[in-house]
């Protein structure tokens, strides 16, 4: 099993979700996040005072998938999240030792 984690632009969430549904994922966790990458934030100005806001609002998504599905899921995230501009975010894949569905007690791939 793999855990696919992505940090994306918040307004791309709907497209990413649609793309993920297109490759048949069964579930998704979404968290509001803040962070910065190489682009280092943006400027806000209030009554002439300039603030360099370095932590931007981002959306973090997590998808738990079967090993074989991981590549397709990554591709779907990229397809949904990419604008080509700086700040599009990142996707990474982690190995997962175990998973368990709380209601039924099913384990492993059956729990996905």
């Amino acid at each position, binding site marked *: 099993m793999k855990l696919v984690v992505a940090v994306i632009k918040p307004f791309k969430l709907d497209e990413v979700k649609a793309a993920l549904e297109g490759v048949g994922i069964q579930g998704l966790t979404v968290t509001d996040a*803040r962070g910065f990458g190489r682009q280092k934030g943006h400027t*806000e*100005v*209030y*009554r*002439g*005072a*300039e*603030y*360099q*806001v*370095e*932590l931007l609002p981002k959306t973090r998504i997590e998808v738990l998938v079967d090993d074989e599905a991981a590549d397709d899921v990554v591709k779907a995230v990229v397809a949904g999240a990419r604008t080509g501009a700086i700040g599009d975010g990142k996707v990474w894949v982690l190995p997962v030792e175990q998973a368990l569905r709380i209601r039924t007690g099913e384990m492993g791939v059956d729990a996905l």
Partner: protein
Amino acid sequence: MDTGDTAFVLISAALVMFMTPGLALFYGGMVRAKNVLATVMQSFFTIGLVSVLWVLVGYSLAFGPDKGGLIGGLDYVGFANVGQAPNPDLSPTIPHIAYACFQMFFAVITPALITGAFAERMKFSAFALFTTLWLLIVYAPLAHWVWAPGGWLREFGALDFAGGTVVHMNAGFAALAAAIVIGKRRGFLKEAMLPHALPFTVLGAGILWFGWFGFNAGSALAANGLAATAFIATNTATGAALLGWCLVDWLKRRKTTTLGAASGAVAGLVAITPAAGYVGPMGAMAIGFAAGIVCALAVGLKYRFGYDDALDVVGVHGIGGMLGALLIGVFATTAVNSAGADGLLAGGGLTLLGKQAVAVLVTLAFSGIVSFILLKLVDLVVGLRVSEEEELAGLDIGEHEEAGYAFTEGGGGTAPMPAPAPASSSATIRVPQGDSA
């Protein structure tokens, strides 16, 4: 007695009342989310507090029979002798009680304006005590000097149609004293203190603009041409000031800001207040445009001089009120109001400008110095500032045991007290040091 005048003044009084909840939104949007209730409460509570003080003794001190040009006598304590018949010296065509009601809401909004300076760090108890003392010891005498028959500034010949000195300069320089006495917010200029809900602020500015028609046109105390003159002067100045502030924003960064537009509108309303019944629409336009530009630059003064006037009461109300009071000396014309005077452009020479300058200096000194003393006194009695922990966690929980925004069912967003953000966590700040003034 004139029923039309009476109806107009009572409705104007209600319009002026509505300005203070508008101010609550205007200020509430500019503070951080953890202080929104404490900020809104300071304005809203003032409506109740000053309404009671005004009936008990405030009105009498301000508008009671003159004692030596300095203060009103106690004849109107508890609104005794404030009856349904007109008082010919104050308002010959409306009931005396209608005049007293109209004046009440000026007394309400003035101390509420000051709260922007000490926002996000003053104890509620200190605020309530200061507001009480300030209303009776600073506001009531100054209102007497400027507006009451026999008041020395009125007899001297200084003009203030609707409260440029009594309300705005008075609040603005009390605000300067407050910012100095209470000190800076923790983290000022080290961490970002961004407005949390500017739509509140823009809506608040809109409510202020609406209510201000009661403030200025209502100050004619009659449903007549002078009221209409003040109405168009008010609106024209406000529009021009909005444009002026946006122009400054645009020249700096090629962007306009909504906070700039809202602030510009308020600056225009402030500046036209003393002049609304003495200038024509073109004079009003000039005053408003000047106010938009000057106040957009004046809000940078706090960075240069190092005082934390959190919501720019000094820059908008102090400087805007001063500008309006002085520009009466330039743009006033008796063609608009025969009870006024001719300023520089109407061939009146420098006489009126000189008198206006005296009124400005007197207001600035009296308000600044007495407010300073009162704040020091309140600091001794109850302490002005909340604790450092409370300031970091927010005054909503600390002072009121409530949260402004509850996004989960487990209680408000800030309870229990969250760890403070490290000082340099999320922003670097560049303030207008060199390009102000």
